[in-house]
């Protein structure tokens, strides 16, 4: 259950006078459930990309349990992310043509030559846990809510210590969104993972321990 420490983080995009993201200080305790909110363009996605190592911070320090991922090379960030982060995106990013089970196992299959022992059973357990009964169904035939639940199962297959979701309910109807929100919270707790959720969805945000509001790349308030 890693904890996050952010110090003097700054991201600038070429041609823009003000930094896209500037965070002087932010800490997330191990096992915490943090929400990120704010209007479009406020830097939520940029922050998500930084804390997951998808992008590298220009300046500052961004350390998970002492590992400053802003200093890691691209390949090492990929490896660190594969080992520590489970991602759930607004658009699912499932692979059409593969079954729900194969989609859950895909990150493991691609990162090593053979599946680690018990991976298949773990995939089955996770799919059952998120309520997907027909594991061999092709994902393109699933409903949007089901797709996001498969994505949640996939995020947890490598037993990550950090679970990050970017607008996980934004493309779902209220009912499916509520189900996915519950699953995220429950599974993060079950997996003892630190959860970071970027969202506009007030019903999801109110269930988190703490919400950070971003505006124009800066932290405006911390609530929850």
């Amino acid at each position, binding site marked *: 259950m890693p904890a996050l420490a952010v110090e003097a983080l700054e991201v600038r995009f070429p041609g823009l006078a003000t930094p896209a993201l500037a965070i002087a200080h932010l800490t997330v305790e191990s096992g915490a459930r943090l929400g990120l909110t704010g209007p479009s363009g406020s830097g939520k*996605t940029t922050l998500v*990309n930084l804390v*997951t190592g*998808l*992008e590298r911070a220009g300046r500052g320090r961004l350390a998970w349990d002492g590992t400053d991922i802003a200093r890691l090379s*691209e*390949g090492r960030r*990929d*490896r660190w*992310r*594969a080992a520590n982060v489970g*991602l759930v*995106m607004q*658009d699912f*990013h499932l*692979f*059409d*043509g*593969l079954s729900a089970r*194969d989609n859950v196992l*895909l*990150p*493991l*299959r*691609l*990162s090593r030559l053979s599946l680690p022992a018990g991976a298949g059973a773990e995939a089955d357990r996770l799919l059952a846990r998120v309520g997907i009964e027909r594991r061999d169904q092709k994902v393109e035939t699933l409903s949007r809510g089901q797709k996001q639940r498969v994505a949640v199962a*996939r*995020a947890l297959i*490598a037993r990550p210590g950090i679970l990050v979701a970017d607008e996980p309910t934004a493309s779902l109807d209220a009912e499916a969104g509520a189900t996915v929100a519950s699953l995220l919270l429950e599974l993060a707790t079950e997996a003892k993972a630190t959860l970071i959720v970027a969202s506009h969805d007030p019903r999801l945000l109110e269930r988190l321990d703490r919400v950070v509001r971003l505006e124009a790349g800066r932290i405006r308030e911390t609530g929850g």
Partner: protein
Amino acid sequence: MFRLVVADLRRNALGALAIVLIVAFAAALGVAVTLQERALRLGSARAATAFPLVVGAAGSETQLMLSAVFLQPAPLGLVPGRVLSSLAADPRVAWAAPVGFGDFVEDYPIVGTTQALVDGLGGLRDGRAFARLDEAVAGAAVALRPGDRFHPLHGQASTGGHMHGETTYEVVGRLAPTGTPWDRAVLVPVEAVWRTHGLEAHEDEAHEGEQHEGEQHEGEQHTDEAHASGAPGAAQAPDPQAAIDPARVTAAGAPGVPAIVVKPRSIADAYKLRQEWRTDTTLALFPAEVLTRLYATLGDARRVLSAVAIGAQALVAAAILLVILLHVGQRRRQIGALRAFGAPRPAVFAVVWMEGFALLGLGLLAGVGLGYGAARLIAARLEAQSGVALPVLFTRDDLTPLLVLAGATAVLAAVPALLAYRQSPAAALRG
């Protein structure tokens, strides 16, 4: 990883099929050109080996070779009878046989010759050789059976020749297949050809009341095509059912023939004979050598053909690359997502590379098969037309270009793979 590649290809099955087919056709073009050219070269060279040395009247070497080996109808001058007589008596000659043509049965050329050539071509498959002037031996590909009778036609049926109605041949034997144009020939005693045309010449002359004893070019004025011209009087064989007489063919006063096929006893003899019969009035040649020279001349045409094929392949390669780049462009999100969810960069590279290589490689393999099939089909049609057996075959030399092509495919597939490898996952997720 393979499952992902297969699933992805299946999802774009039509596009993938199109790419495979385009690559296959492009590869087939090159393969067919290479194989067909080789088949023509080997086939005609093999056809020429049955004719070690050909002697004819002074004129075009190429034409003499084409007429004697490939039975191409053309007006040829005649060599006097004393040439054959002299060759037949030469101790350096294993056998020498006259070749006289000009008549056809349907579209099969009738060739007047002797037993020596029947044996020289590989002998008979069934029946027996001609023993009388009205008997004939059919080539392996001729649609005539022993027992069939026919009238010779002056000129091909398809180009409107006239019938020698007064002459009838009976097929008494069939040659073993030779894989040469001679499979489409009907062999008759050369004396019978002389007789058929000698009689004609005689009729023409009846009006003029003249005798052309011993003149060589008699009876040829009325046609563009070469045929053995009979000297009336010298070649008269009044009874069409008379037995053949080899001695008369090789007599010094025998009528002329357009070509003489000579089998020398040794290679040294072959060169000496060629040297001796290259005179002011006669021409001696090795068909294989003339053929080689012909190929050297045609080599440029082959290079042009290969260049066209290579050009087409390069264009296809460029088009395919574009298609693959667009395809990868569309899948940037998906591929970026793979990395975001934990796939290492090399795996992303491998997935895209395998997809590309599978498509191009499959196309390449299919193309080799398709090209082989096309070459076989073309060869079969040409064989039916010309009788020349065209061996369509791969050689060890083909391995190198195929491996080079496979390597180029691997490199080509690496281009989109490299782009996917460099794709930032964060940008990919944004779409």
